[in-house]
């Protein structure tokens, strides 16, 4: 998502001038770092009222055909193609609507959108509109997973506090996660929403069997984390990364601490965790850490829950550590056979 005072193309994406030789079947081929770039001062033209209204007035505009009355949001055109190009007029649109269909969720985004992921992108039919506005979708309840926002889910437009006159100035959250006042308010800001109290799955009902399962899995998990901490390849996966994670499960809770290549497990979890992982059955998370299924998939399929959407990237790093450890073990077995 673009912000003020950033470069149009951030420096991190720009390679140095250079080249290398790739050898294929004994032949050498020259491969050069390159880019095809064009800068623009691009007019928003007839869309300017829409984007200016988003940026300056926290309003959403559509256009209404003076003949058939069809209301298009965003206001795509000044004349209606369905009415032999009868003129349209700009109208203000309500900021609550329903999802036209179930939106997809992108978990693994390209570098351009990595800071937005995981994100939903779908189409909302705002009240009074006949066409759908494409929007990003988020939840305040924790990680965004399938089932939270579906066809027919009522959603509310939320405005970014810092707006630049792009469609990314707004996104939607389900109205069920907001107070009636927030739902009714025009121009609701992102900062007015409580993002700090996600809805943790209930794991309070604990049997003695759960406790036994936890104890056994916890011992194994400690051993796996220790192995990861001693594995150079796995340590590299969390270089320059720091997170204090509280892990909760039926039967107990503990902490996983990541600090620039180090990973440790401690009986006592952090008092102010960066985020919470809930694995109802600790064996599920253990499977992920021992490379028997990706933890990211377990989150998407709701077997594991995390409290913060943006910490999906940390979970992805845990998946990579699991893979690194598995590969090192495999390489070690192969070497011992040789």
């Amino acid at each position, binding site marked *: *998502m*673009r912000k003020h005072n950033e470069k149009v193309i951030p420096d991190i*994406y720009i*390679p140095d001038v250079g080249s290398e030789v*790739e050898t*294929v*079947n004994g*032949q050498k*081929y020259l*491969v050069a*770092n*390159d880019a*095809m770039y064009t800068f623009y001062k691009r007019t*928003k033209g007839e*869309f300017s009222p829409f984007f200016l209204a988003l940026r300056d007035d926290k309003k959403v505009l559509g256009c209404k055909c003076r003949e058939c009355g*069809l209301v*298009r949001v*965003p206001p*795509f055109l000044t004349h209606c193609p*369905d009415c032999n190009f009868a003129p349209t007029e700009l109208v203000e649109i309500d900021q609550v609507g329903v999802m*036209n*269909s*179930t*939106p*997809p*969720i*992108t*978990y*693994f*985004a*390209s*570098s*351009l*959108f990595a800071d*937005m*992921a995981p*994100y939903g*992108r*779908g*189409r909302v*039919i705002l009240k009074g*509109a*006949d*066409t*759908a*506005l*494409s929007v*990003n979708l988020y939840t305040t309840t924790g990680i965004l997973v*399938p089932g939270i926002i*579906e*066809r027919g889910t009522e959603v509310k437009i939320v405005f970014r506090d810092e707006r630049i006159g*792009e*469609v*990314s100035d707004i996104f939607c959250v389900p109205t069920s996660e907001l107070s009636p006042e927030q739902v009714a308010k025009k121009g609701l800001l992102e900062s007015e929403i409580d993002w700090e109290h996600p809805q943790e799955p209930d794991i309070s009902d604990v049997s003695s069997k759960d406790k036994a399962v936890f104890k056994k899995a916890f011992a194994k998990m400690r051993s796996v984390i220790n192995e990861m901490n001693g594995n150079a390849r796995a340590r590299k996966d969390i270089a320059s990364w720091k997170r204090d994670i509280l892990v909760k499960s039926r039967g107990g809770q503990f902490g996983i601490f990541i600090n620039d290549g180090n990973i440790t497990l401690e009986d006592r979890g952090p008092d102010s965790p960066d985020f919470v992982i809930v694995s109802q059955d600790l064996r599920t998370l253990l499977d992920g850490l021992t490379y028997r*299924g*990706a933890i*990211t*998939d377990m989150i*998407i*399929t709701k077997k594991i829950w995390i409290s913060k959407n943006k910490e999906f990237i940390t979970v992805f790093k845990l998946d990579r550590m699991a893979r690194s450890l598995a590969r090192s073990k495999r390489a070690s077995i192969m070497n011992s056979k040789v």
Partner: protein
Amino acid sequence: MSKRVGIVGAAVTPFKGRWAEKTYYDLAQWATREAVKDAQIHINDVEGAFYGIYNDIFERTAIPEHAIHGLCGMQNKFGIRISTGGATGAYTISAAHAYLAAGRFKTALVLGVEKSTDCFDFSSMTATPEVIKSIGWSADSFFEQAIGWTAADSYAEVVLAYMDRYPNDLKPEITAKISAQLSEHVKTNPFAQRQFDQVTADEVMNSRLVVYPFKELEICVYTEGAAALIMAEEETALAISKNTGKPVVWITGVGEANEHSFVGRNHKDMSRIMSDHYAAHRAYEMAGIKDPTKSVQIVELHDAFVHQLEISMAEFGLVPLGKADSLIEDGLMTPGGKYVVNPCGGLIYCGHAVGASNIMSAWSAREELIRRGMKIALVHGTGSTIAQFTACLILENQ
């Protein structure tokens, strides 16, 4: 009265994830050389060229066809490029068909080429994110690009909307079985990117979710390569066929449709791929096919995603909407079933060299019609955002 048009030569280069050894110039000429050889004609006998190249960004140049026109032996002749997203190849065949049917030319070269994985993401030091980003520039630039549009999430929008409407269709175990079957088909395609990449349904089921509901082994792969056809009007086609001894595969039906790019009342219905419906049924009508379930034997379908393959088969009228899983459950596309679907392995296993993909599909359909002695094939290309462009062709074995 328009003239009959047929395919009299066809070729593909090997489809690969990366061709460090070749630029798109040489890939284009390679496919042309082989197609001309297959038709046993001289390049001088080809009167016009139709280029299917999807994306200027992939080729890293605007007007990418200008460089290859002369290099493919077409100097001072007609040359036109078609670019309609994923449907580029099928639309290119359609365009060549129209010119030949109108009598403008006796012969034409249809050439698709793409060089996608020169794109490279220097932050992850891999190609794929940059390829995805490059395709992302295809989205609506005012309202969609800035909020993370990708080809995968765009197709997922359509698939999820279909699943909203038909919640009991597109079951994960069925999409997994289809992918596994396509991986078996590809075994006999020596030009395929993943010829020896056979997978089980369990492996598909356990592969990573990329964009829900798509798993890694249910998605087409990015490919570099080229494919070419030599097409001719009736008299010329028959003369070439007599010379080569290979039957003419006639293009008896052509249909296209592009839906609205935006969604809502009087706009795109997200739960359908109406472009597939209209294009296929227009092609049937032109070919005189009353009931496609009784006529179509081979389908070379643009399978960007397995789920979309199923929806497309329903939109073609080959299975009922909402019951696309019958493709597997009723054995319609399993070995020995009613339809041979993507015998080349499709775009998921043969590969997706965008502008070349549907032309590769036509190459495969022609080969399979002749080899199996079958009569009718449907070739399909879909593309653009939310699967809104489609071109379909009916191929008939002489």
